């Protein structure tokens, strides 16, 4: 009998071990797959986006001799001297100077269409750049100098990624010619962080989105943090055990789990329609995200308070502290690290939120960096959404770069939270 069983077990053992191995492989495979997705996601975004942190410049020899300056200025001056120099600098058509230089450089552009496509090689802000560099070095006037001028987005993409997108044959020729003569270079693109959105991909930046995100964060944090912490302390320490408390708890747990777009609808009806707050302003955005962040902060704070052992409460009470003194003198300081971690995580979630902000009209084209809480604002995720919709090739790169910036900020937040937790968390 016993031998029989042993035989049976031995027979089935091989099969069972095979099953075990299979199960194990499934486990490894699923973790590996999840990691692969992560790597794929990050790899795609980095490979697409890094280019936006660089921009291409073209070397152009620009004739700043008296004759050409006078020719390209709007008001005619007799001659240039120190007295009328500032006035002259304002009156020069820098675009004209660049056009002239381009025509001289590529003299094979003959027809009007060709000349037009020649002009499209430089960026729209090239004139502004030229003006600034001349204003900084007035001694250059009267000479012929090489200036590095921002290339247009199409050229930029061709040079950086070797992608022939919407360049025509002539432009392609010129680009190759420039590359051969080493008259193209890439430099760090700080403008990407300074400028607001624009119709031209080469001068569109995340400045407005960055500032907007900050303003919105300021609003929702300054509302949600005190309210959330106070609410959590009330529910944990003071609330009587009754129906009302149960209802509050259920509603808060439910608020943490309902789709974020519902908050957007709330913002639309209550803030925009009922209170008539300014559309797509940081104020409305912040107040909408406030409701989204509040339950998260409450739940995180409550978990922290619950983890504090009751011996601390008992000891303080035994020494004659009132309930409020127990909270203010002991529980609050002890739970600060936990509250901080929870808040940072809640903030990083809210900063990536897009859908509720679309509802309150944050899809407008914002070409200026917002100054006030009531100005029309955009935030980083919304900017990403807007750019990702744009058919222009240059914006695809910008989208990925903006995502990179957003991810960097969020990962930084998470890192801070992890470090805080590691450093200050007490195991009771």
């Amino acid at each position, binding site marked *: 009998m016993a031998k029989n069983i042993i035989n049976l077990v031995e027979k089935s053992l091989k099969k*069972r071990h095979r*099953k*075990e191995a299979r199960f*194990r492989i499934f*486990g*490894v*495979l*699923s*973790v590996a*797959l*999840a*990691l692969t*997705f*992560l790597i794929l*996601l990050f790899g795609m*975004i980095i490979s697409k986006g890094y280019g936006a942190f660089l921009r291409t410049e073209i070397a152009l020899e620009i004739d700043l001799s008296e004759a050409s300056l006078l020719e390209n200025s709007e008001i005619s001056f007799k001659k240039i001297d120190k007295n009328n120099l500032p006035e002259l600098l304002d009156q020069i058509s820098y675009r004209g100077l660049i056009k002239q230089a381009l025509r001289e450089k590529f003299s094979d552009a003959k027809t009007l269409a060709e000349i037009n496509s020649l002009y499209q090689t430089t960026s729209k802000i090239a004139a502004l750049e030229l003006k600034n560099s001349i204003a900084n070095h007035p001694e250059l006037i009267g000479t012929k100098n090489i200036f590095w001028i921002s290339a247009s987005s199409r050229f930029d993409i061709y040079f950086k990624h070797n992608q022939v997108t919407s360049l025509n044959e002539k432009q392609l020729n010129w680009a190759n010619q420039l590359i051969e003569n080493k008259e193209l270079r890439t430099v760090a693109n700080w403008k990407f962080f300074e400028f607001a959105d624009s119709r031209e991909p080469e001068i569109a930046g995340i400045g407005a989105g960055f500032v907007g995100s900050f303003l919105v964060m300021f609003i929702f944090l300054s509302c949600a943090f005190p309210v959330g912490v*106070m*609410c959590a*302390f*009330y529910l944990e320490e003071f*609330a009587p055990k009754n129906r009302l408390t149960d*209802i*509050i708890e*259920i*509603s808060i747990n*439910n*608020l943490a*789990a*309902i*789709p*974020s*777009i*519902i908050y957007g*609808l*709330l913002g*639309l*009806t*209550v803030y925009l329609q009922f209170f008539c707050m300014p559309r797509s302003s940081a104020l409305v955005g912040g107040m909408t995200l406030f409701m989204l962040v509040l339950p998260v902060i*409450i739940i995180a704070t409550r978990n922290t308070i619950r983890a504090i052992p009751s011996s601390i409460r008992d000891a303080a009470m035994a020494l004659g502290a009132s*309930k*409020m*003194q127990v909270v203010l003198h002991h529980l609050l300081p002890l739970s600060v690290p936990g509250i901080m971690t929870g808040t940072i995580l809640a903030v990083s*979630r809210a900063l*990536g*939120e*897009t*859908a509720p902000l*679309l509802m309150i*009209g944050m*899809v407008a084209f914002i070409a200026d960096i917002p100054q006030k809480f009531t100005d029309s604002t955009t935030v980083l995720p919304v900017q*990403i*959404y807007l750019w*990702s919709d744009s058919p222009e090739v240059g914006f695809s790169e910008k*989208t*990925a770069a903006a*995502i990179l910036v957003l*991810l960097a900020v*969020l*990962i930084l937040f*998470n890192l801070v939270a992890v470090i805080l937790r590691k450093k200050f968390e007490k195991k009771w």
Partner: protein
Amino acid sequence: MYLLLFSVILVLLLAFALNRNIKNLRLESQKQEQGGKRLRFSSLPIHYIYCFILWSVIFSATILCSSFEAPIKYLLSTTFLIGNFFLIRLFYKKKFSAKNHIEGSLKLILSLTAGIGILITIIITASILFEALKFFEFVKLSDFLFGTTWNPQMAITEEQSVGSSAFGVVPVFLGTILITLIAMLIAVPLGIMGAIHLCLYAKPKVRDYIKPILEILAGVPTVVYGYFAVITVAPLFKNIFALINIDVASESALAAGFVMGIMIIPFVLSLTDDALNSVPQALKDGALALGSTKSEMIKKVVLPAAMPSVVGAVILAVSRAIGETMIVVMAAGLVAKLSFNPLESVTTATAQIVTLLVGDQEFNSPKTLAAFALALTLFIFTFIFNIVALVVIKKYKQKYG
């Protein structure tokens, strides 16, 4: 603005003066009664200061918000604050317990903040319900729930709009269910198997590295996933299916659902991980001692023990997938089709809400109001799912140890 600054400075100055004053009074009374029995005070001087500041803030806030002219405001706030100063001093002399007073008021403020949670819920329900009811004045409830064409059109006149456009929600929810199903097919097996591997097989060191990395996946904003779906996943599927001569829509449900699944993996994984961790070691050891292999132990002991929490996690994940917006707005289609084919383009409730409400809204056209009806349905569904998940976890969770 200047008034605010003025009041703050005045309050600080008066508080400082009050502090000095009370301390002096205390010293004096101590001197007088030296030799006699010990003096008893109900509160520290600082409690009186807190009282003073609390009431000053309340006064000033009311004055600031009132609609008096500026000079009267200044006059009022000055008189009130100085009056407050003497009032508190009087209270001190009458041995009024400032500590109890300030603690009581603080508790009141705390309880008021707790009411905000309920308030938000009520406002959400009320505002959505209100707009949705307006919608049902235009469209019958049965038409909305069982209609099979969804075609909300921009109308020139109101009558025309009701006539030419249709508000049948079935295709929209069919699309939602399809995409959610695809997402669950990806997320549930991968999440649960991943959690089992990390919790029960992987070495602690490996787990310590991999878990935070996967948490990054959970922290990525949904708009990034949407972009990922549009740029990488959708063309990938199109190319793969082109190899076997099947035409896939560029905004297929498959791509959106797949990416949504990736998004939800870490969510399922971490919840399952918690559930598996809470199964007591004694149960696992017992199963192993009876001669089961590790996988048998997991399948027959650990998973059944953790099942309620796992089911709760899956339900929460479903509710999240239904409410997910940005991925479907970017990667799924906008035209509602009555189809359950994952290779076609379908639309979801959240995507429809966004398309209906972005841009200019007229709050009396059924087109805009339809979004609120959709949102109400969405809200009710996710609410039910969340409650069910919480109940399942709470009720069926066995207490070990």
